[in-house]
């Protein structure tokens, strides 16, 4: 892995760092399908936390609970020290502006061009930004993901990997304090995947963001993770650094690293 050496490793977290996201005893079921069964999580300021779990284990459900897209059946969800399920719409919107969310399916707005897609999250700050500043932000965000030339295309004209990267650019445009990535590298070729992983680390350094990264891609996990959390049967089964978990013999953890 000679590439890794010329690239900054993920920033270590200060032991007394502030907690940005906290869940305690989080339960969420859909009918008889008990997805989360007492999940506990702490995301510290400035860290990259990777969440591993089998397909269908509830990783997407977990991060949707964190932004209030799904409401948990039971348990505590705190972001920036505020209890998400108890907030009213206005306060929730205020918090959401500070959280970036990359959807697994990219969720680009089909009826808008790439430029309009990126401008959409800026609508809230519209009044305080001039046209030039907005353009600059859009170009900067596209440059980050290497797609400056796609600015006037429609989402239907993009490949799957390009959609993913535009989705990432849209997530990053507000420079959020917390970013939730749902499988940022899935569906990308290994080279682009590695670039995206490095971008995640870069962003962490540049803006001091705290991120939760959901992934199956161990290459990505190795590059970005400060800590890794394994989600099994709806609970946080294990937490540790990449190396610690890699050397584990536990039958629930080992298969991820094979």
């Amino acid at each position: 892995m000679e590439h890794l050496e010329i690239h900054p490793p993920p920033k270590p977290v200060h032991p007394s760092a502030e907690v940005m996201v906290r869940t305690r005893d989080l339960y969420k079921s859909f009918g008889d399908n008990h997805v989360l069964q007492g999940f506990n999580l702490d995301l510290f300021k400035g860290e990259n936390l990777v969440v591993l779990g089998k397909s269908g284990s509830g990783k997407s459900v977990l991060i949707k609970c964190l932004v209030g897209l799904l409401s948990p059946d039971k348990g505590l969800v705190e972001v920036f020290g505020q209890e998400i399920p108890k907030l009213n719409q206005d306060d929730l919107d205020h918090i959401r502006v500070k959280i970036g969310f990359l959807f697994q399916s990219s969720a680009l707005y089909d009826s808008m061009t790439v430029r309009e897609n990126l401008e959409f999250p800026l609508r809230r700050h519209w009044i305080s930004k001039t046209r030039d500043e907005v353009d600059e932000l859009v170009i900067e965000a596209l440059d980050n993901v290497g797609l400056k030339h796609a600015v006037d295309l429609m989402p239907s004209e993009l490949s799957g990997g390009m959609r993913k990267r535009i989705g990432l650019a849209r997530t990053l445009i507000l420079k959020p304090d917390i970013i939730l990535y749902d499988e940022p590298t899935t569906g990308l070729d290994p080279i682009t995947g590695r670039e995206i992983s490095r971008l995640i680390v870069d962003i962490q350094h540049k803006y001091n963001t705290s991120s939760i990264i959901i992934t199956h891609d161990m290459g990505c996990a190795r590059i970005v993770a400060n800590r890794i959390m394994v989600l099994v049967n709806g609970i946080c089964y294990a937490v540790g650094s990449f190396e610690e978990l890699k050397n584990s013999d536990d039958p629930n953890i080992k298969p991820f690293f094979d």
Partner: protein
Amino acid sequence: MPRQEAKAFRDFLLEVGSISDFTARFFREGFKPRYEWSELIRQCYVIGYKTLPLVGVTAFIMGLVLTVQSRPTLEEFGAESYLPSMVALSMIREIGPVITALICAGKIGSSIGAELGSMKVTEQIDAMEVSGTNPFKYLVVTRVTACTLMLPVLVVIADCISLYAAYIGVNFKDVVSLDLFFSKVFDSLVFGDVLPAMIKTYFFGFAIGIIGCYKGYNSTKGTEGVGIAANSAVVVSSLVVFILDLIAVQIADILGLT
């Protein structure tokens, strides 16, 4: 009591309840600032422009056919000179508003249902929500308002076109000048004919918008759900147009406007 029918009845009541909820939410959120003016204007343009050709052609044919077919009956009574007033009355009071509303239910209802439905199942609505933009306001309030405002405009245009078509129809056999034709039309029309007909078109427009948005916004089950949303939007809103028409006739009757 058969179990299935009981269940169907219960489902029906639940649906009515949640559409009422949805409507209440429209009024709650619609009057709160910040208003989405530019999107509202865009929607008005899209809705008006998309349906205008269809509405125009249908109105023309209806006016012409009604005139040509009514003539023999009126001739039997030696009352051909009443042809303009009769056609005008039936077009303006009933056929214009109802036919236009049905066309809009088909054209606008289905497109809103399909558009919002696909945005829902591809998580685009969720993406708006997490970016701190209120999707209900941006998508639903604008579309419903645009429908409510544009339907009366379309009806007025349809009325004009159908009257002109009636003028052509009258001239197939007689020679009547445009001036004479319209003076006959306006002699027979009174305020009580036009006003209730115009007021009910606002309700038709509102119903088409609300039902299309409700079906789309609440669609589930992936791409299949989008089809169901579009389809049921058309069916339900057409039905509601007839029911509203029935109610409007009763109210006009009670108020002595007939």
